[in-house]
């Protein structure tokens, strides 16, 4: 079974530039999550989708971050304009149903962003 795919793995940009990350969850997984993990810290939930609807985006900085999940499958996370404090690893995860009810979250390898 193919895992959660993320791209790009690494991205370096100047502040005020824009960047987009892509995630393809495991086939058939209804729930998709984007987490931000700053070096040495725990992942912070940015947004959670159930199919193509948003379940929780309370910690997404909406003035600069946006995310969509096209047709309830793959998802894109965009940052525009980027700030220095956005330097982090962006983790995508998916689960079969409503997350913890039916099983574990499966994580991708992450996209590491460096903002200079």
């Amino acid at each position, binding site marked *: 079974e193919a895992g959660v795919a993320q791209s790009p793995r690494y991205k370096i940009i100047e502040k005020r530039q824009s960047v987009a990350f892509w995630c393809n969850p495991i086939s058939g997984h209804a729930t998709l999550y984007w987490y931000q993990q700053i070096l*040495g810290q725990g992942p912070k939930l940015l947004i959670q989708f159930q199919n193509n609807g948003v379940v929780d985006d309370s910690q997404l900085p909406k003035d600069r971050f946006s995310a969509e999940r096209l047709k309830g499958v793959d998802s894109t996370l965009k940052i525009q304009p980027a700030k220095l404090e956005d330097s982090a690893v962006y983790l995508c995860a998916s689960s079969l149903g409503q*997350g*913890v009810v039916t099983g574990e979250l499966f*994580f991708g390898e992450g996209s590491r962003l460096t903002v200079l």
Partner: protein
Amino acid sequence: AQTVTQSQPEMSVQEAETVTLSCTYDTSENNYYLFWYKQPPSRQMILVIRQEAYKQQNATENRFSVNFQKAAKSFSLKISDSQLGDTAMYFCASGSSNTGKLIFGQGTTLQVKP
């Protein structure tokens, strides 16, 4: 609101010894699950063990077991017979059964020494 606190930023243990990682949590939910995830250096996050909050019996997975104290909102992870491959960052997490929202603690870096 859900919060998860791990008070041990770093720990070390000798190979073959036992180590316990601490975690406390807070939640207003009645139905929730607790997890320990492992993140090896530069590798993907993987699930170590999970505990349903409605179950009194502590979960066990081979060398990994938990001590779940519901009243105290404590959820510690015990690793027995530690192996070099256990070296990783370990995250405690709390998940809502209603929303599927999963919140992580700050993590504990575990170093297993030969």
